C-alpha cells in the first residue's frame, strides 16, 4: 500500500468520524463519566475504573463500529479493487481509535494523578489493555452484521470487565487471588503501586502476555479467514 493510500484512508475515516453520531455520543458520555464520577462526595473512585469506561465506550465501540460499517455500507469491495488489503483497512481504523483513546486517557491520567511520572506510568499500564481491546473489537466488528450487533455482543464483555473491576474495588489484594489471571487486575494494582511510589513493572507482565496471545490468535484467525 502506498503512503498516499494510507493518507486517503485516514482522510476518509476522519471525515466520517466528524459526523458519526454514535461514536461521538459514546466518546462524549465516556468523557462526562470520567469527569463526574470522581466528584461524588465521599467516594474514592479508582483510576482503573475510569480507564475501564474509556476502554469500553471509546476503544471497543469505536473500533467495532468503524470496522462493521465498512462491511455494512458495502464499501470494502471498492477498497479491495483499489489494491487495499483487508489488513490495511483494519490498521488505518486501529490507528484512529488508538489516537482517540490515547488522547482521552492522557487527559484522564494527568487530571487524576499527582505527578507527571505517575501519569505516564498509569498510561503505560493501560496500553496493553488498549491494544488487547483494539484487536478484540476488530474481531467483534468483523463478525457482526451491523452496528447494533456490535453493541449487542460487546455489552457482555464490558459487563464482565466492570464485574471484575467491582470485585477488586470491594476486596483486598490478599482476597480473591484468582482474579490475577485477568489483565485488568494488574492494571488496578499496578496503578495502586504507582500511587504509593512503588515499582509497577511486575504488573505489566500479565497484561503484556495477554496482549501477545491475543495478537497471535488474531493473526491466526485473520489469516485463516482470508485464505478460506
Amino acid at each position: 500500500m502506498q503512503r498516499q493510500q494510507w493518507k486517503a484512508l485516514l482522510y476518509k475515516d476522519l471525515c466520517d468520524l466528524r459526523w458519526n453520531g454514535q461514536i461521538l455520543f459514546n466518546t462524549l458520555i465516556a468523557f462526562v463519566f470520567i469527569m463526574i464520577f470522581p466528584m461524588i462526595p465521599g467516594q474514592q473512585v479508582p483510576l482503573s475504573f475510569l480507564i475501564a469506561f474509556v476502554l469500553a465506550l471509546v476503544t471497543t465501540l469505536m473500533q467495532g463500529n468503524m470496522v462493521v460499517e465498512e462491511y455494512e455500507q458495502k464499501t470494502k469491495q471498492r477498497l479491495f479493487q483499489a489494491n487495499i488489503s483487508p489488513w490495511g483497512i483494519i490498521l488505518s481504523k486501529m490507528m484512529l481509535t488508538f489516537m482517540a483513546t490515547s488522547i482521552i486517557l492522557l487527559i484522564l491520567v494527568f487530571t487524576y494523578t499527582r505527578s507527571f511520572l505517575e501519569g505516564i506510568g498509569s498510561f503505560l499500564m493501560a496500553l496493553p489493555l488498549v491494544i488487547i481491546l483494539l484487536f478484540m473489537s476488530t474481531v467483534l466488528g468483523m463478525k457482526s452484521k451491523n452496528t447494533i450487533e456490535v453493541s449487542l455482543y460487546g455489552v457482555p464483555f464490558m459487563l464482565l470487565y466492570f464485574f471484575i473491576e467491582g470485585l477488586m474495588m470491594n476486596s483486598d489484594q490478599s482476597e480473591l487471588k484468582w482474579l490475577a489471571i485477568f489483565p485488568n487486575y494488574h492494571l488496578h494494582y499496578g496503578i495502586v503501586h504507582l500511587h504509593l511510589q512503588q515499582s509497577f513493572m511486575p504488573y505489566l507482565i500479565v497484561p503484556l502476555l495477554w496482549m501477545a496471545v491475543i495478537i497471535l490468535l488474531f493473526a491466526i484467525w485473520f489469516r485463516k479467514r482470508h485464505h478460506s
Partner: protein
Amino acid sequence: MVFSFNQLSQIEQNTIILPELSLSVAKGEIIAVQTESEYIQRLLDLLNHPHTVKKGMITLPEAGFQAVYMFQQVDGLYKRLTVRQILNFWNRLYQQEVDIEVILNLCELQLCVSKKVKQLTISERRRLLFSLALIQPTEVYIFEDPSHNLDLQSKHVLHNLLIHLAGRGGAVLLFTPTLEEAIRLGDIVYRYSERGTQRMEADGEDTEADQEEEETSAQVPFEKISAKVEDKIILFHPLEIDYIEARDGQTFLFVNNEEFASSNTIKTLEERLQAFGFFRCHRSYLVNLQRVREIIIWSKNSYSLSLDNVSKSTIPLSKGNYSKLKELIQL
C-alpha cells in the same frame, strides 16, 4: 482487444449454472449484453473473486483485475461524506489528480457537491458511483444494469459518460436484463442465454423478416391479435397493445404492463397493424403510436420512445426509423 471472456462457463453438480461465454471488447467499443439477472450475478461473483476463475478464461489488461472499473448494483458509498469528500478520497486512493469540477460537470453533480451521500437521491448516488470511472486509471469498464431505477437526467448522464469513456479509448462492457437498454446503450449488442452468446444484427438487417416472409403470405386478414397463455388463446384488439417486442425467436405483446407470447412474427404483425397506427421503430420493436408520449434524443445516433402506459416503458428507436417517424408525424 483489451478484455475478453474465453469460453467462460461454470458447472456445479452436473448443472450448467453459467453457459459458455465468449466475448471480447476492444478499445473504444461499447458492448451491451442482454441476459438474465441470475447470469449477471454469477458473472459478477466470478469477477469479484477472480481466484475462482480458471486460468485463461478471462483476458485482462496487464495490471489485472485492479485495472478494471466495476459498477455493481450493490456498490455502497460512505453515507456521512459529502460528494466532494468522496471525490477527493477517490482521487487520493487512486493517486490521481483529476479535476473535480470536470467530474461534477460531466456527471451533473454540481448542485449536490456539498450534500452528504445520505441526502442524495438514488439517481444522484448512481451518478456519483459512475463518476469513479473518470478517476480510476483503467481501460476496462464493466457496468451491471447501470440504467436500472435511474431518472431521465441520469440516463442522459450515463449515456454521455459511456460515450466519453469509449472516446478516450476505454473498453466498455455492460450487462442488462432488458433488451431496450442494451440496444439504447451499446454500440454492439449481444444476447447471452443458455445457448451461449449471439450477436444481434444491426437495425435494417432484417434477417428474421426474410426468414418468415413466406409464412406471412398465408395470413388471413383478421382484426384481433392472438396470444397463447397456457391452454388458452387470448384475443386482443390492436389498440389495447402498447408495443410488441421480438426476442429469442418469439414475439411478445405488451398489454397493460403484462407480457403475452404471440405465435405471429413481428413482420406479420407489422403488416397487419400498420393500419392501426403501429410503427416499426426498431428491428425488434413495433410500437402503437397512440401510446407514444415522448421521443427522447440521447445523441445524434441514439433515440428512444417513451410510452404513456402504466410502467412508462422506454423502447429503442433506431436512427433510420427516426427519420421515417419524423416524416410520419410531419415533424
